[in-house]
């Protein structure tokens, strides 16, 4: 059996290659990154398949027993994300060969980001999670700043400062959790926290959840996101849109499910539902007001992650499966949308909603692809966007939470309003129909978009699969066992 530590070690160690090799020979960064990511993908799929077919794959690094050492775990909850990270990285890499930044150092950051995000997904140690959060954070700050425009540096700095404050608040929460219990292991924390002195457990919960909420970018903690995604090179925006907040949301979900049940659940649920509702409403409003399509998509993420949080708050097996499906689906659809934005900026030099007028006639296939992705984001069947929302709504109603269900369904309407604006422009707007293309796109760029579009359609039926995978893990939770970790 493959040690999950390899999933982290391969991209982190491999990250040295592009930076070093490209100093010796130019343009070696991309193929080296491709090689490392191929290895990573094979490992990820292998481990995930093993974890989903049988028992969760777990290991204690250096053989130090739990709960003293650092545990790594690939179970039904983390496996989809491990695979998502690897495959999304490959797809976006295909795009960046022509479309994205091409320096060797950039590809090192690319691999570090992947390694850091994978680490967040597999670790069962709350401090170790912080370390990987910072690796992925630093890598993304650098990647955002890769864009040539000066605004990118300021956007990256804002991302860095806000992101670091968020991560530090998380660390502060870890401090409270440790002082209260003497352990950093998730399973041991779950056992010890409810018995701990109340204010300490609550402060730990509040600060850790808050820190991750910054990374997820729930309203009003989102302000770094639109700037960063708008300023970043399209490939970077796509990669971050696919993975950064997604993995943070996964971590948030795991903490809520595997560490904090039993700590003031009602209050926490109310607070998180409030944040989620604010994200859905405010994100949609802000998206509606956006002129830049990239900003619009970034704001749309607020609303979409609000829905995911609703699923984790409802926390029935159906709703959790819905959140996982929606996280994966959103990653695919949002990354695809950003790739389209980048592609259109390159081929037609358009960036704002107004400039998108009449694009459907000038670029029918790319526009159709964008339309499919947008319909998915709105939540029209049979796309994966529908599947995720449907499961969350179903779970919410099963749990009797009509507020949550209403939020999810209302978000569909909001999505139509702000994405419909773009589609309306593209399809009926009077645009400069005779303007020729301003640049060429590579087959890799089109292929990456096509993969996202096809996945949006094909993943629509993935819900029951995810639900089936999660069932044993969630059963363990219900029995009071820590998630997948040695009880």
């Amino acid at each position: 059996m493959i040690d999950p530590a390899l999933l982290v070690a391969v991209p982190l160690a491999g990250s040295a290659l592009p930076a070093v090799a490209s100093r010796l020979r130019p343009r070696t960064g991309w193929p080296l990154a491709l090689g490392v990511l191929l290895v990573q993908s094979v490992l990820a799929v292998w481990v995930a398949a093993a974890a989903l077919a049988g028992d969760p794959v777990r290991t204690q690094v250096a053989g130090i027993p739990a709960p003293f050492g650092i545990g790594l775990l690939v179970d039904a909850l983390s496996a989809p994300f491990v695979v998502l990270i690897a495959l999304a990285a490959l797809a976006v890499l295909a795009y960046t060969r022509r479309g994205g930044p091409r320096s060797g150092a950039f590809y090192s950051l690319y691999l570090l980001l992947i390694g850091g995000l994978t680490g967040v997904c597999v670790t069962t140690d709350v401090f170790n999670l912080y370390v990987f959060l910072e690796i992925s954070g630093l890598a993304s700050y650098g990647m955002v700043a890769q864009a040539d425009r000066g605004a990118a540096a300021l956007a990256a700095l804002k991302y860095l400062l806000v992101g670091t404050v968020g991560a530090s608040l998380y660390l502060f929460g870890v401090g409270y959790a440790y002082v209260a219990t003497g352990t950093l292991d998730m399973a041991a924390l779950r056992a010890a926290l409810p018995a701990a002195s109340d204010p300490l457990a609550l402060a730990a919960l509040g600060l850790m959840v808050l820190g991750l909420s910054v990374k997820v970018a729930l309203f009003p903690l989102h302000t770094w996101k639109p700037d960063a995604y708008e300023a970043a090179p399209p490939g970077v925006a796509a990669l971050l849109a696919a993975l950064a907040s997604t993995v943070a949301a996964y971590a948030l979900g795991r903490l809520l499910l595997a560490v904090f049940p039993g700590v003031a659940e009602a209050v926490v649920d109310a607070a998180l539902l409030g944040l989620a509702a604010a994200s859905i409403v405010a994100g949609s409003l802000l998206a509606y007001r956006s002129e830049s399509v990239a900003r619009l998509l970034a704001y749309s993420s607020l609303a979409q992650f609000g829905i995911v949080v609703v699923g984790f708050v409802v926390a029935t097996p159906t709703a959790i499966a819905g959140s996982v499906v929606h996280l994966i689906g959103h990653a695919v659809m949002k990354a695809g949308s950003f790739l389209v934005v980048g592609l259109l900026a390159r081929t037609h030099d358009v960036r704002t909603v107004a400039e998108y007028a009449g694009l459907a006639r000038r670029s029918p296939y790319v526009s159709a692809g964008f339309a499919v992705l947008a319909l998915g984001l709105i939540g029209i069947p049979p796309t994966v966007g529908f599947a995720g929302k449907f499961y969350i709504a179903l779970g919410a109603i099963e749990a009797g939470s009509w507020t949550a269900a209403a939020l999810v369904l209302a978000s569909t309407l909001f999505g139509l309003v702000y994405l419909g604006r773009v589609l309306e422009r593209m399809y009926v707007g009077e645009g400069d129909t005779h303007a020729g293309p301003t640049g060429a796109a590579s087959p890799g760029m089109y292929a990456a978009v096509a993969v996202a579009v096809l996945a949006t359609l094909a993943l629509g039926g993935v819900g029951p699969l995810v639900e089936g995978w999660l069932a044993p893990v969630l059963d363990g939770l219900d029995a009071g066992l820590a998630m997948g970790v040695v009880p």
Partner: protein
Amino acid sequence: MIVPPAVFLLVAAAVTAVVPRRIGHAAGVLAALGALVVALTTPLGTVTDATLFGFPARPVAVDGFARVVGGVLAFIAAANTVYAYGSGADRQETAIALAYAGASLGAVFAGDWLTLVVCWELMAVAATVLVWRSTAGRAGYRYAVYHQIGGALLIAGVVAHYAATGSFVYAAGIATGLPRVLATAGVLVNVGMLGVHVWIVDTYPRPSVTTSVVLCGFTTKVGVYTLVRVVPGRNVLLAYAGGTMLLFGVTMAILQTDFRRLLSYHIVSQVGYMVAGVGVASGLGYGGAMAHLANNVLYKTLLFMIAGVVLIETGTENLKRLGGLGRAMPATAAAFAVAALAISGIPGFSGFVSKGMVVDSVDAAGLDALWWMLLVGGVGTVISFAKIAYYAFVRADQYGHDPGRATPAQITAMGGIAAVVVGFGLFPDLLLDLLPAGRDAAKVFAASQFEKALGIAAVGLVAFAVLRRPLKRITAVPDLDSVYHPAGAVLRDSVVRAATGVADTLGRSRRSTGVAIYRAASVDVGRPASIGRSVLLLTLVAALVVVFLLS
């Protein structure tokens, strides 16, 4: 195990999108006819079970209602495609129209709520694209919003139904209580229930001729059909709502001077008959509603085709600017005569029998007031079609129109439908035998029916003669959309701008902590939030969270 009829049309849609126009349209006609054959020949009770989104589902279930409604929709899809070919529709438009028809058939033959929801949304998307492609302004956007609201309500109802019953497969309607309320509300949007009917008259008169023709037959009819599935059983409130729709629609129709707008209001009124029948829910009521649905699809599509030909050939659809078409366009005029007589319920044409069934079912149910409403509505129908006939076809042309003739394909399509309308009128058993209910109770050619129909027609004609001059003075009649759409825009804009506006106003006022926090909370509305403001918000939320948790 059968091939779902929807698949024929969806495949044809994909083919039509890429092959040359002539071949594509031919493929569309063949596919629609294939779907028709499957719909009519599949034995009742056939079901196909499958898994959809991981749930046991029943994508195809054939019963008498599905057979009739699915069959007529398949037939009309074929006619529409012929008409589209003769009216210059491009291949993308026809492809989307076929997809729309396919989704409608999918919804009709669905045997579970999940399949229904998927087809329902697909219909909304396809129809929205159709409207969007050929309509200036924001009608397409509004269409999408109306149907998304309806779709979300239906999904909510279906999800709640599943939570209550644990199954998506059709049983005795949607679970009562909140699930049924939600689902009914969602379906009523598509039905065009009074109050939410505005999308019909907002959308159908505007787009290209071929798009109007495609749209008029499907969404509301699938809505009525689904209503039977959602709320089985007698529902007097619903029956009266149908009567109200009828009277409202017919009254508004009489006041219109735009050909397609008048017809659109008649969709509201005709759907009223069907809703009344569904509300009565007797064998006769259901049979009448479904038969009327089928007949209505035929003659209403025919009427929209005629309006389209008139618009294409004369360049106007304002009745006050038409005239003399009876002589100039004899074939079209003949088709109009058939359709108008059918919708007016004249014996020998298809509306006569089905309308009579609905009226009789109301009578049998003892709903006297509703019975009178239906009769009065019948008079109104006669008045409005007398109006069209007089202005467009009978009176002499004062405007110097020199209309050409309809194209052969248009005439084929219209003629085909007209033949069926007459056929169902003369041999109503052709249709009624397909229905599971109502056949036996229907007093098809009883003398009382003739008296009623002819009486209504006479009263209607006299009324039109009396009312023609007063009606001339009426110009634009406001409907609820003149409230909804400005209100919607105001609501949307004010909600969106509130944050900015209030923040700006406060920003000009004296500096205070409250103002600063409010402005911080309205982040990003104007321009990107600064780093300081971002961290301030983060700190604020942190403080609130910690205080909230500890208190």
